[in-house]
């Protein structure tokens, strides 16, 4: 599903990804780990088509995420580590997503409800004015409602309380079949029941890749 071939990405003289090769297939739930600066976020952003590689390529179902970004992104859900300060209200954000990604608003509401986030009471509130946990719940609800084949989470539970984490993992367990689930995490113990593959990165290279 995702194929990364000889991928190198440099920022100035700093090599962030150094000739990476890996493949992620359906029903693989991967924990992507490594120290800060190991290249995890760069790898994710390359998969999302944000970076132009210096060498090598990424293909998703045979498609280039830069040249065919719209086709590729239809199949990817993404939740960043820190919720960005989006100034749109929740209603406007859902409008952007439901029209842009042809998603069902009701489904977002459903998953928000499952995450114990009351969207209706906050519809006209700016996204950035919500608490950290509420923002993260909203992004998780959107990611699940998108029903994507590939779900990428960059430390998604950083702002969640233990109860919300449980809700999140329960929903994920219900929605993971026939998908690729890619977790960037520093806390393997939290996701070890969910993942079946662990990848460690260091200095832009994959130093360990094992199925568990």
């Amino acid at each position: 599903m995702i194929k990364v071939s000889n991928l190198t990405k440099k920022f100035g003289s700093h090599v962030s990804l150094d000739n990476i090769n890996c493949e992620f297939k359906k029903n693989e739930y991967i924990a992507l780990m490594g120290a800060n600066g190991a290249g995890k976020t760069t790898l994710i952003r390359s998969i999302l088509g944000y970076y132009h590689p210096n060498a090598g390529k990424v293909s998703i179902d045979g498609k280039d995420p830069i040249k065919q970004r719209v086709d590729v992104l239809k199949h990817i859900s993404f939740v960043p580590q820190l919720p960005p300060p989006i100034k749109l209200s929740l209603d406007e954000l859902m409008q952007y997503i439901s029209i842009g990604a042809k998603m069902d608003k009701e489904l977002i509401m459903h998953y928000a409800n499952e995450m114990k986030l009351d969207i209706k009471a906050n519809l006209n509130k700016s996204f950035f004015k919500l608490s950290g946990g509420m923002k993260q719940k909203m992004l998780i609800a959107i990611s699940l409602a998108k029903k994507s084949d590939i779900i990428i989470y960059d430390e998604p539970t950083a702002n969640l309380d233990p109860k919300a984490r449980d809700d999140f993992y329960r929903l994920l367990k219900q929605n993971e079949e026939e998908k690729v689930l890619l977790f960037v995490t520093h806390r393997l113990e939290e996701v070890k029941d969910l993942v079946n593959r662990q990848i460690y990165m260091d200095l832009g290279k994959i130093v360990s890749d094992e199925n568990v």
Partner: protein
Amino acid sequence: MKNLYLIAYLDLKESIRAKWFVIYSLVFGGLIALFFIAGVTESQVMGFSGLSRLLLMYIQITIVILPIFILITTVRSISGDRDSHVLEYMLSFPISLNQYYWGKIIGRFITVYLPVVFAMIIAVVYGAFKGAAIPWSIFFLYTGLLFAMSSAFLGIAFFISSFVKSSEVALGIAFFIWIFLLAFIDIALISLMMQQRLNEELIIFIAMINPMEIFRVAAISLFDPELTVMGPVAFYILDSMSQGVFVLMSILYPLFIGLVFAFLGYKIFTKKDLV
């Protein structure tokens, strides 16, 4: 197309809620109100009076403050979203870069253009209510000039925004461009260049490529056929081409500049790393 309008609509809504937009609208609306309070419409200076006088004052001030307002508020549009990781999230949805970029431009154009035109409309309506003669030719010329001027600086701002990584740097560049273009209005550097006896064709060329200078000369040319309040370069420009041709050029040229810069910005936006 649907996504393009959606992004324009959401950007417009977001901008209208922003504090800068309130200040922006108050400045231009406030200017008109101030002129009425100060009795500018009652005064007669250099042969023109009433609403014409008010519009002239308005446009003179607009020449200086509109570009910097547009640059400062727009230059952070994409670079700010990149800085704060908003772009990273918003572009994780299947929206084409084409729709995102041009949608933002359309939304931002409406945001910056409407308050300045609306302020003029208020002046005309209020003037008509008070029984003043409406200078329609000036009103339409200014509407066109403001449209062209807004396009030029919006295009420049989006161009800067597309390649600058941090919004602080974007602001610095925007401020420099404004000062630079302002300095080349013929009251300042161009007059100095003439004093130094530089080649007059070079001086006129420098003046003609500056959208602020073109705007200023076109805005005043309808009022002042004797050129008493215009600078030396303006005199040369209007001496070398007819007023009609110049007015047409003063609208088409900034529009062209705006489109070229916006298009260059788009190319950079799609060719560079997005975040």
